[in-house]
């Protein structure tokens, strides 16, 4: 049976509490992973691993998150060249982060800004899309 958005949110919240050592109350939908929850670069890999484990219900069909599919800091060269987003990259960020204020990013195209924009609800959106629920 497909998970509801609330069920997905609850699992994501648990993953972030464990990975980042934050309180459950700190993990709100709009909380930024970096600015609000203090995530550092290795934490993004830790979160990816924990999400794969949390959303795998059948060991014969593991829930896998391919590199670069979830976290924008891993965008490939089609999307980022010399630290600047290409047109395709900018469009991809708009698609992945529909809740974020992207005005500064639109102006500078600086890919280093992206991790600061990534919020809890963006992970929930991604999981919901991927599970098709």
């Amino acid at each position, binding site marked *: 049976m497909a998970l509801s958005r609330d069920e997905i949110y609850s699992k994501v919240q648990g993953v972030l509490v*464990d*990975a980042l050592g934050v309180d459950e109350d700190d993990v709100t939908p709009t909380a930024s992973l970096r600015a609000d929850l203090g995530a550092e*670069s*290795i934490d993004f*890999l*830790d979160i990816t*691993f924990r999400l794969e484990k949390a959303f795998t219900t059948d060991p014969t069909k593991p829930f896998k998150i391919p*590199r670069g599919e979830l976290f924008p800091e891993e965008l490939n060269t089609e999307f980022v060249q010399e630290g600047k987003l290409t047109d395709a990259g900018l469009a991809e960020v708009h698609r992945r982060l529909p809740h974020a204020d992207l005005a500064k990013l639109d102006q500078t195209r600086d890919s280093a800004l992206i991790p600061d924009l990534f919020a809890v609800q963006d992970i929930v959106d991604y999981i919901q899309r991927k599970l098709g629920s």
Partner: protein
Amino acid sequence: MRWIWIDKFIEFTPRTSATTVKNVSLAEEHLHDLYPDFPVVPHSLLVEGFAQTAGILVGEARNFAEKVILAKVSRATFHRLVRPGDTIHFIARVDQLSEQGASTSGTITCGGELVGEIEMMFSHIDQNMAGLEFPEHNFVFTEQFTELLKGYRAGGVVTI
């Protein structure tokens, strides 16, 4: 001083698990530094011993092609002290492994008693820190570490 906190492997299953042994001797200088009248192994060095065990396990999974560094200690809980004369086991397993790094977990035991529980992340730094400069050679897996594993694979028999 040789920065190596494991004595030998007693189990090694590639990409899965490894167990090492460390014999604690009163001759080790660090034992006299923390509490001069009450020698104990600092928890930080127990974490390092576990990291060396798990790190070699992670490195071997990709034939030591990656520079594997300890990136995060997600959890380290200790239940008892380790003192001179103790023989401890570091028991590590790989939970997840990708081209970017690995998550590992396991225990430290002494005489069958639980000393500590640890979860830690390793990063393949060439995969994660593109643009930063690192030496071309693999400076993580020095001869000291790879020889340990060779000794295990040779059944502990060292030929000269």
